[in-house]
């Protein structure tokens, strides 16, 4: 019996007896491995498209050097957002349907067959079916069994002198376990999508935000997300460590968490070390210059500044402010540059201030204390994570089992007392042949 050489396209219990031929052919089609391979390759092709076309909003496609017609086609099929396009998601749905069908109608029946002990086989069938055959010296049956057991085979001896043995049945669980793992990942992914949220919060030092406010601006929120948090997060401190003046070593934020019924607590986060509280995780994700701290006259204040992109000043920030009777344009290229001040009445630069420097504008003393940095937090809740991780490790276990080879051997006693040894291995045939030779030499040398 060789499961490896039988035609295996046919599902084992697709019996057409009662349900009719259409049901049987439905099952045969949807559980077929051929369909599976086709879908796997189609998903791979779709994924390739997503790595070639800029993903995100359509502007990426519009700005790329292509003919207008090509752009239209790409946008029409959602190539700028492949992984969430209707056809890619449908492909995944069909794939998982195929996976479910083949697990139920192919993997399970096959596993049931494989777990049965191998059946005895006549010598003539051994010669017909097994290319790997060896004649063994005349040897006592007990000794033969002992040698096979020493080689960690599971041995079945029959009264007529026939011996059947097998080894490595664990490999037969490979497909089933891998498929279960893939389903687990799917369920976890759905749980992530439906029950989680993902948001971003740029916080200035001293700022405190209720977590509910952060959830409100989430760019991704599942319909079943818990969504109600009665506590807040604040930024106590944000700073960077440098290897040298141009190379950042690490970004740190000290977060203050205020929960009702708990004393306020402070936690440090940095890249690769998020904070998890009540199912919400805070990641150090980005940062930026959001304004300048100025003191004008007696009062000090933080001037919120906007991205200056619309003035073609990329990456820098600017703001129009009124100081005294005058109007000024404040411009800060980055967090280490001096603050530039332009008088909007004359359109002339009137001051360039380093940190801590002062000048007089419209009769007021203006001091540039420092740039105001914000720490960008990625904030999310993802109840799917444990499920996804469980799925990950199930898949790894499953595919690792595939490395084991399932070996079955048959021994028939001949009239002259010799044995004919033959067998099949579903993989690792070269090593299997070596193993057969080893068994023979073990019998030969000890005879």
């Amino acid at each position, binding site marked *: 019996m060789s499961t490896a050489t039988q035609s295996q396209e046919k599902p084992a219990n697709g019996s057409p007896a009662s349900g009719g031929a259409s049901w049987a052919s439905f099952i045969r089609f949807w559980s077929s491995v051929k369909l599976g391979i086709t879908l796997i390759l189609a998903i791979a092709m779709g994924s390739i498209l997503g790595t070639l076309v800029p993903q995100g909003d359509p502007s990426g496609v519009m700005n790329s050097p292509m003919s207008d017609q090509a752009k239209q086609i790409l946008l029409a099929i959602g190539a700028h957002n492949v*992984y969430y396009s209707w056809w890619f998601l449908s492909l995944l749905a069909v794939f998982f349907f195929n996976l479910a069908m083949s697990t139920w109608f192919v993997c399970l029946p096959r596993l049931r067959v494989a777990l049965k002990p191998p059946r005895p086989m006549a010598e003539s069938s051994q010669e017909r079916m097994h*290319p790997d055959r060896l004649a063994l010296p005349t040897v006592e049956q007990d000794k033969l069994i002992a040698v096979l057991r020493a080689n960690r085979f599971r041995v079945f001896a029959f009264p007529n002198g026939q011996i059947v043995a097998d080894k490595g049945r664990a490999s037969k669980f490979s497909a089933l376990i891998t498929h279960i793992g893939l389903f687990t990942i799917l369920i976890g992914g759905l749980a992530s999508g439906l029950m989680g949220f993902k948001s971003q919060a740029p916080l200035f030092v001293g700022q405190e935000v209720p977590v509910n406010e952060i959830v409100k601006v989430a760019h991704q929120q599942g319909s079943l997300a818990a969504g109600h948090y009665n506590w807040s997060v604040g930024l106590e401190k944000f700073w960077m460590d440098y290897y040298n003046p141009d190379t950042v070593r690490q970004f740190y934020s000290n977060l203050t968490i205020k929960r009702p019924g708990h004393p306020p607590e402070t936690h440090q986060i940095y890249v690769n070390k998020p904070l998890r509280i009540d199912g919400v995780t805070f990641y150090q994700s980005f940062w930026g210059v959001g304004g300048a701290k100025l003191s004008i006259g007696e009062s000090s204040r933080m001037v919120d500044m906007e991205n200056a992109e619309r003035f073609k000043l990329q990456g820098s920030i600017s703001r129009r402010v009124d100081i005294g009777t005058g109007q000024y344009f404040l411009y800060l290229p980055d967090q280490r540059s001096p603050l530039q001040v332009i008088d909007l009445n004359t359109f002339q630069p009137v001051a360039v201030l380093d940190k801590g420097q002062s000048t007089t504008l419209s009769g007021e003393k203006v001091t540039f204390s420092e740039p105001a940095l914000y720490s960008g937090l990625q904030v999310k809740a993802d109840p799917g994570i444990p499920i996804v991780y469980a799925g990950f490790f199930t898949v790894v276990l499953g595919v690792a089992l595939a490395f084991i080879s399932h070996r079955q051997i048959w021994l028939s006693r001949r009239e002259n007392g010799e044995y004919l040894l033959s067998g099949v291995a579903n993989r690792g045939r070269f090593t299997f042949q070596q193993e057969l030779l080893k068994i023979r030499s073990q019998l030969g040398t000890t005879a």
Partner: protein
Amino acid sequence: MNNLVAIETIFVDLLFWGVLAAVIFFWTEIIGKQKWARLAGAAGMALGFVGSIGAMVMRYYYAGYPPLSNLFESLLGLIFALLGIYLFIEWRMKPKYFGAAAAPMAFLLIGFASILPARLKDAHPLMPALQSYWLKIHVSLMLISYAAFFLAFGAAVVYLILHARNKRDEQGGGTGGGTLALEGGSTFGQTRTQSTALAFFDEITYRLILLGFPVLALGIITGGIWANAAWGTYWSWDPKETWSLITWLVYAGYLHARTTRDWRDQRSAIFAIVGFVSVLVTYLGVNYLAQGLHTYGSLL
């Protein structure tokens, strides 16, 4: 520090010359049918292996981080894994011609590593996103799987060459299937014919992919877990992520085609070669295709 860099260079030289010698010896084996040449080739590969270990240890020592963060370091790791797997197979199975496939690949990788510009070669301090113990785990798993796929590719090419030669010699005789025939019960051992060599290369391609496949799965997964700790999402369809999944899918297709439909012979070897192309895109090509998280262009 400079002394340590100099020692690293000596180890890289040892790797280079060891593998170059192996290439020459293995091809001598094929052309001249010299038995000693094969041993000399394996010795060259072993020297190269020692060189790759030495170079990585030196870099770890003077740079102070696991040497897996730029292209040169990853090539070094890949060559180390490739030579390690090769030596294991050589030791266990003593296959003919396998070295002749493995050595040129290792040599091309070293050649590539040595012409890299300094910015991709020299040790640089780690950026924040890379400062994690997952760096060691994730990158080394990926490199081990790549190494297995590189060797599987080499074996598949040798298979196709032998297959073509067999066909020419036998004018369409049987394919594959070297067998242990009944040998009258008296002689031990096995006669190696060309068809057993063919069966061997078919088998070793399959087994190398069976090795690379779970390791790649584990590599992708540890990458996901790391990404979840660093960026807050375990999967973001970043081009490198996506291509590693594509590679995994192609090999999944290979394994399904093979185990369930009994696809052996050339079709299987060609599938293995397609998988290898996908590995190359994942490893090197992606960085030219698109900007993604793995290029570390932005802050993180």
